[in-house]
């Protein structure tokens, strides 16, 4: 039997003051599946993402990546296999040139032939010519794509993105969607941008108050007025989810 790409069982987490952020999360993502994680601000989505790579943890429950349990000994390997793209590219791009930044992960993970890993990743996001530029000289859209490349260069099995379309202009948003659509990795996408979720992900999972409250085909979730209203989800004016991918 093949293991799922990602499997969470009763993952819980509380702040030191006792506020529960994750209240028993069960989630299963199959290989090659694209899942949108939706929910209001404060639902615990970003906290959940930080659990997937063991930056937060210790609250209880278990996380398995392709069957391997996330613990101290598997942490380094799992961080390579789960590529997390942070919400603010300025947090993600911390080296002085694009090349160094994209090479940071592959070097740490001991990827063979770092240089071709870097240029393959930059080519995949259409930023090959920017290798020698400084991150702070790039536009917002370029920075977002380089941030994606820093993770792609580690050759992850699962790509996890936190609000990838925020602060992008419409063309930058579309270009990023094209890049993401061209990848065949498993995808977990946290977003408030519901049309983006519909465009890229066949399944949507809704989180609220630290729990998963709904899961199903994205078009179906977006078309369910009760789920939408209960979780502060709203479609843009004039938008109807007529064409679901699946």
């Amino acid at each position, binding site marked *: 039997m093949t293991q799922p790409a990602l499997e969470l069982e009763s993952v819980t987490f509380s702040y030191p003051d006792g506020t529960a952020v994750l209240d028993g999360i069960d989630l299963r993502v199959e290989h090659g599946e694209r899942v949108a994680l939706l929910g209001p601000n404060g639902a615990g989505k970003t906290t959940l993402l*930080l659990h997937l*790579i063991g*930056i937060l943890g210790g609250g209880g429950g278990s996380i398995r990546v392709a069957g391997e349990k996330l613990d101290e000994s598997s942490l*380094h390997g799992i*961080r*390579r296999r789960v*590529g*997390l793209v*942070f919400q*603010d590219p*300025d*947090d*993600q*791009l*911390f*080296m*002085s*040139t694009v*090349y*160094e930044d994209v*090479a*940071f*992960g592959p*070097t*740490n*993970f001991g990827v063979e032939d*770092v240089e071709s890993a870097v240029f393959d990743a930059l080519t995949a996001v259409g930023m090959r010519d920017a290798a020698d530029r*400084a*991150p*702070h*000289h*790039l*536009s*917002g859209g370029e920075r977002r794509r380089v941030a994606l490349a*820093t*993770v792609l260069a*580690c050759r992850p099995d699962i790509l996890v993105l936190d609000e990838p379309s925020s602060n992008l202009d419409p063309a930058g948003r579309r270009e990023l969607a094209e890049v993401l659509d061209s990848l065949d990795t498993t995808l977990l996408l946290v977003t408030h941008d519901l049309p983006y979720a519909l465009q890229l992900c066949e399944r949507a999972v809704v989180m609220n108050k630290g729990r998963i409250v709904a899961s199903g085909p994205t078009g179906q979730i977006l078309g369910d007025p009760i789920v939408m209203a209960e979780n502060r989800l709203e479609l843009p004016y004039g938008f109807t989810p007529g064409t679901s991918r699946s």
Partner: protein
Amino acid sequence: MSGSHVHALTVHGHSPLHRLPARVKLVALGLFVVAVVATPRHQLWAFAVYALLVTMVLVVAELPAKFVLKRMGLEVPFVAFALFLPFVGGAPRITAWGLMLSIEGIWAAWNIIAKATLGTAASIVVIATTETPHILRGLGQLRLPPTMVAVAGFMVRYLEVVGDEVRRMRIAMAARGYQPTWLGQAKALAVAGGALFIRSYERGERVHQAMLARGFTGAMPDLIDDHADRSDWAVALSVPLSAWLVAALAVAA
């Protein structure tokens, strides 16, 4: 935002100085500065030779004079301080242009201005012909502790990010009617400074998370390959070694 900025510190070029490895230039700079500082201040001829050496290097580096002069502005505070010395120094004094000037003060001012100018000009040559990542890497090769190199790298990377945050905060303050006056601005600025510190601290935490996410285990990867061969060292060290010779003669004289 910062999209259109050019790198203010480096002048792009292909001069022999641009091609030298960073650590070679850093060693040469250090040795040159030591020679200048060690030279007795009354040996005027020695400083003339140093000035000639620096000018030659500036010409070889093909740096625009306007750029160099602008960057030299860095030393203005030191010069301003030095210019006080002739007025506050002790006896004996001389009278020039109707002013009573201390001879000792004039020598002290000359000493500061001459050495600071030579050191600043030499530093500008190195910084203007070396990309910042290469300087950092060179410092690492010269056995500066990796943590300090990494901290310097982050400072360069986030200077503009934090600078943008300061600009946005100032605009937000101005937009709500804040009109700074000399005394009145103190409290608001202190509050803004505190907020900026918290924001920068939190960004530091997020950056650290992003580093951990990509497998950071405590050591920064070593990526730039800049091999230095003997001819590089010979070319670069010719300038500071000439300066050392001059300094030795000046001390002996």
